[in-house]
């Protein structure tokens, strides 16, 4: 027990340190940005600029603003958006996080289920036609960037066939289908490849041989006996999956005009909206760091063979 407390304590400390470094780095990078965050900056006179800078506190010394910002962030105050009529960034992102989370979850759920299924099928038919097909599918899914997939889906199902809406978020589930599909390609490919490798190993083990000797059908063996052990290591893919979903959301949300975090991030980048950029950066990093942390913890709980690093 003591071992666990120490381990989790160290990990949490490093997580906090990582986030602190990211926050600081983003802050100073943002302040090194060329240009100002104001619209029509070319037409503003120096007096107007000074007034605006004063209003947003940009006239204070850098270090003081840094300390202020850190303090505010700790209180959950991420500043005001410079782009959307002075809305607090936290509120702005709060309104937009819903679609992103929904899409992310749907994509992970759909992608992993299909991916795992394909992976098991591939492992059952190792080195035969079905396996080659599944592997090709997996490698294509890994190679083709998700924005290309998104655009293709949009072209086929929305523009040409007109089955589904081209974009926006106003038709309930129907408008989530295409973006979910586009985002799910990479979790699908990832889990398919991963499960295949795991299952090939599992399926050649003794207890599977026993099940076979009992006369169980191959499908039942694979899905009830084999998958149980093959699924555990899938947890380790969670980290990379989150990263690819975040990356994907940036561009997929843009293509389908979905009011989510990713779309907001791109907008704020293109309009120098400092506070929003920083808030999204911190949000993404926090998400990634906690997913990695959770993955490690979960893995150790589920699989006792994995030892805590440094423990005796």
């Amino acid at each position, binding site marked *: 027990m003591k071992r666990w407390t120490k381990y989790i304590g160290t990990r949490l400390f490093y997580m906090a340190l990582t986030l602190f470094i990211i926050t600081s780095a983003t802050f100073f990078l943002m302040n090194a940005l060329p240009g100002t965050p104001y619209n029509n900056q070319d037409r503003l006179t120096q007096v107007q600029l000074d007034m605006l800078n004063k209003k947003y506190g940009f006239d204070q010394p850098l270090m003081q603003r840094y300390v202020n910002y850190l303090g505010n962030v700790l209180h959950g105050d991420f500043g005001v958006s410079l782009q959307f009529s002075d809305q607090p960034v936290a509120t702005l992102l709060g309104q937009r996080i819903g679609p992103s989370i929904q899409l992310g979850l749907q994509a992970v759920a759909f992608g992993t289920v299909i991916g795992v299924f394909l992976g098991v099928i591939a492992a059952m038919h190792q080195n035969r036609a079905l396996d080659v097909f599944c592997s090709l599918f997996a490698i294509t899914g890994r190679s083709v960037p998700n924005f290309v997939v998104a655009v293709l889906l949009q072209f086929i199902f929305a523009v040409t066939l007109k089955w589904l809406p081209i974009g926006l978020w106003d038709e309930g589930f129907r408008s989530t289908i295409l973006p979910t599909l586009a985002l799910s390609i990479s979790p699908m490919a990832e889990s398919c490849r991963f499960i295949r490798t795991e299952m090939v190993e599992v399926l050649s083990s003794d207890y599977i041989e026993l099940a076979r000797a009992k006369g169980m059908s191959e499908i039942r063996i694979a899905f009830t006996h084999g998958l149980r052990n093959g699924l555990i290591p899938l947890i380790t893919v969670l980290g990379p999956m989150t990263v690819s979903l975040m990356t994907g959301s940036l561009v997929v949300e843009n*293509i389908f005009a979905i009011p989510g975090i990713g779309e907001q991030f791109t907008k704020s980048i293109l309009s120098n909206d400092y506070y929003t950029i920083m808030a999204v950066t911190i949000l993404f990093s926090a998400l990634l760091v906690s997913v990695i942390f959770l993955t490690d913890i979960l893995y150790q709980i589920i699989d006792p063979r994995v030892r805590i690093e440094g423990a005796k």
Partner: protein
Amino acid sequence: MRDIEQKRALIPDSAFRPWEPDRQEAEPELPRALSFLEDSWRKLRKNKAAVVTMILLVIITALAFLAPVLSPFDPNEQHLAWKNLPPKWPGVNMNGLNGTSTFRGRLVDNYALAKVPEGQYFLFGTDEFGRDLLSRCLWGTRISLTIAFIAALLDLTIGIFYGLFSAMKGGRCDTIMQRILEILSGIPSLVLVVLMLLVFEPGITSIILAMVISSWIPMARVVRAEGLKLKSMEYVLSARALGASELKIALSHILPNISGIVIVRAMFSIPTAIFFETFLSFLGVGMKIPNASIGTLLNGGYKVFKLYPYQMFIPAIILCVIMLSFNLFADGLRDVFDPKMKE
């Protein structure tokens, strides 16, 4: 015994000669030991996908780097009268490749409408400014590949340096260096890249720098892990006993033995770099217009893809082929150099 005598009778006496102890028996010729490269090549050849993609990659790279010679037009040369012409191939009469397109349900010969002289073909069509898409694709692939190659080379170098140093030093230094890596790896690379691009002026150099900053970390980790493993091997110990310096051990005893894994890693980092470049340019923070890269071509094509789908599909297909080839080839290399590696 009788058996032997019977056989003896079958062999004529002339076949026997007295044994001469001095005579050197010719050694049966042993096959020459294969060198590292030969052995790898022999294994790689068995993987059909890897060989095919390797040839494809060589062709694509050659085409891209010969762009100045091959491209029929200057990639930025505008012919405003000839804008948005669909692809037209000499001698091919298939809709989509013969310079016609459907406009309000009717087939229109765009080349005739734009008064393009006979014998003038745009194999990939032209874009909204009448620039030849074939030339732009060639130049664009060239830029994208250049960025990817340099980025991969740089993060290879940094990763090897950092990883080897960390592994060879060991102790406190190693711990600190690993902690730094741990912290850095918590930063989503995409966010980092975007931030770097915001601060620096977008362009080839800043894209490369931005990508290198985020992608050397896994390389450093792999190199360190392998280095630690090899460091405790007996041949390293004997080299040390013979007085080899740490630097020499690292460079000439450890590095060659991890080169396989490093090569595989580097091959995987090339498609990642290409992905980032196209991704950033697609979002509009990467390469700046009018420079052609696959990303900017996709971006331009996407804006008009409802009207002129070929402007997006051609770069998209090129991108997919390149990405797929690199991944398949890297997979093949991995099977050769590092069959145990599982990702």
